């Protein structure tokens, strides 16, 4: 029975119909569970019922994952049962459920959003995106480092040269640099000195380049992932064809 449940939960190749149904079921439950968050007044009994029922279902999914974790670890070790509650995904699952049970202060209600982590666990598209980020992690990290360094340097220059009225704190300067680099530019904070204008212009140019780079890397990685999946499928088909002959 546990093998069956394990197959149901880790239906990575979407080969089992019941597994696909279970994936969709949990994803829908996770989405429904956060619907009450979309209303200002979510104290209506219907919302409470929705929250309670969905939390019980998601908690059951947590229990199923716990009871099959030794199979996930592939060494059939009993330690798996002790380790599972402390794994990052299990902690996120529990953190997403606790606010509804009233065991965390109201300020932690936002943690309910962690229930959407289920989408990452069950959705094939989400898993694909995670794979891309994992593979391109180093490249993305170096681009991020350049962006952070640029934000910091331009904010520092701006903070030093601009009048205190424009940039009262360093945090304001960081805020300005971030919105300028990402080409958002709300316009609530802006430079007035000549140096400030020059930095602002350079930031705008840099912003386009730095923001476009990760987008390009992720897109290329995504295409590569899809391509390798296609190739894998073809190879499997050829094998099956060869096997029949």
């Amino acid at each position, binding site marked *: *029975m*546990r093998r069956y449940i394990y197959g149901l939960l880790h239906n990575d190749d979407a080969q089992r119909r019941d597994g696909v149904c279970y994936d969709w079921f949990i994803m829908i439950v996770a989405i429904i569970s956060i619907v009450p968050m979309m209303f200002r007044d979510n104290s209506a009994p219907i919302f409470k019922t929705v929250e*309670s029922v969905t*939390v*019980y279902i998601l*908690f*059951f999914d947590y*229990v*199923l994952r*716990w*009871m*099959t974790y*030794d199979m996930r*670890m*592939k*060494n*059939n*070790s*009993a*330690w*798996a*049962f*002790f*380790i599972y*509650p402390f*794994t990052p995904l299990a902690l996120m699952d529990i953190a997403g459920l*606790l606010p*509804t*049970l*009233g*065991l965390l202060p109201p300020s932690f209600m936002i943690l309910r959003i962690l229930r959407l982590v289920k989408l990452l666990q069950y959705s094939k598209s989400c898993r694909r995106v995670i794979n891309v980020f994992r593979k391109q992690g180093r490249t993305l990290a170096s681009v991020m480092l350049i962006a952070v360094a640029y934000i910091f340097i331009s904010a520092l220059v701006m903070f030093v040269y601009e009048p205190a009225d424009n940039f009262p704190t360093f945090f304001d300067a960081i805020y300005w640099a971030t919105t300028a680099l990402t080409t958002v530019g709300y316009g609530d904070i802006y430079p007035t000195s000549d140096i400030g204008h020059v930095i602002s212009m350079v930031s705008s140019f840099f912003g386009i380049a730095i923001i476009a780079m990760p987008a390009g890397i992720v897109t290329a990685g995504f295409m590569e992932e899809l391509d390798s999946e296609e190739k894998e499928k073809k190879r499997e088909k050829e094998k099956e064809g060869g096997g029949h002959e």
Partner: protein
Amino acid sequence: MNDEKKRELIKYLSVMLLGIALNIGFYWTAHILKLPMWLDTVGTAAAAVVLEPAAGLVIGYITNLFESSAVYMSDTIVYYAITASCAIIFGVMLRKKGKISWKRLPTAALVYLVVSSVLSATISVWRGGLPTSEWELMIYKKVVSAGVPEYFALTFSAGALKLADTAVMCFVTPLLYKVLPQSMKNVVHFSFVTWKSPFKSCEK
């Protein structure tokens, strides 16, 4: 699914149902007779030993779901941590090279007693600071009035009730194991490895 597998599944589910019935039956008995114990983990421990720890985890969940939706508030589902610890401690510690070793029962019972008392006190503190059952509250008040700090008083009062629970579990579990036919026992062999290996396999 072939007939043999179907039969195995039916046996497995029967033991699970028995575990749930034991949990709820014992719990109601203790509740109605106002006994100084909970007894809602007896079936969990029995199923974890007879079948496997995973079966205990599911039985525990169903029992806690019943209790939190029919008897207490929905937030009491967090007491599942205690039920889960029961399933894991008894299901794992009593197994030695694929066989049930009853010599390990006292150690498992002691570990469960300590773990469940600490967990129970911690959850009680988290939920508002007071115990849930009347007996526990009475012991707690007496211990606090003797000058013991609140958290230790909670642990002690939970431990007193858990001691009775553990004693019943230590009696019922071997009894059920001996009464049930061999075909209903699913002796799972776990390769107990050193502390290093599981973390290595996690990284993989």
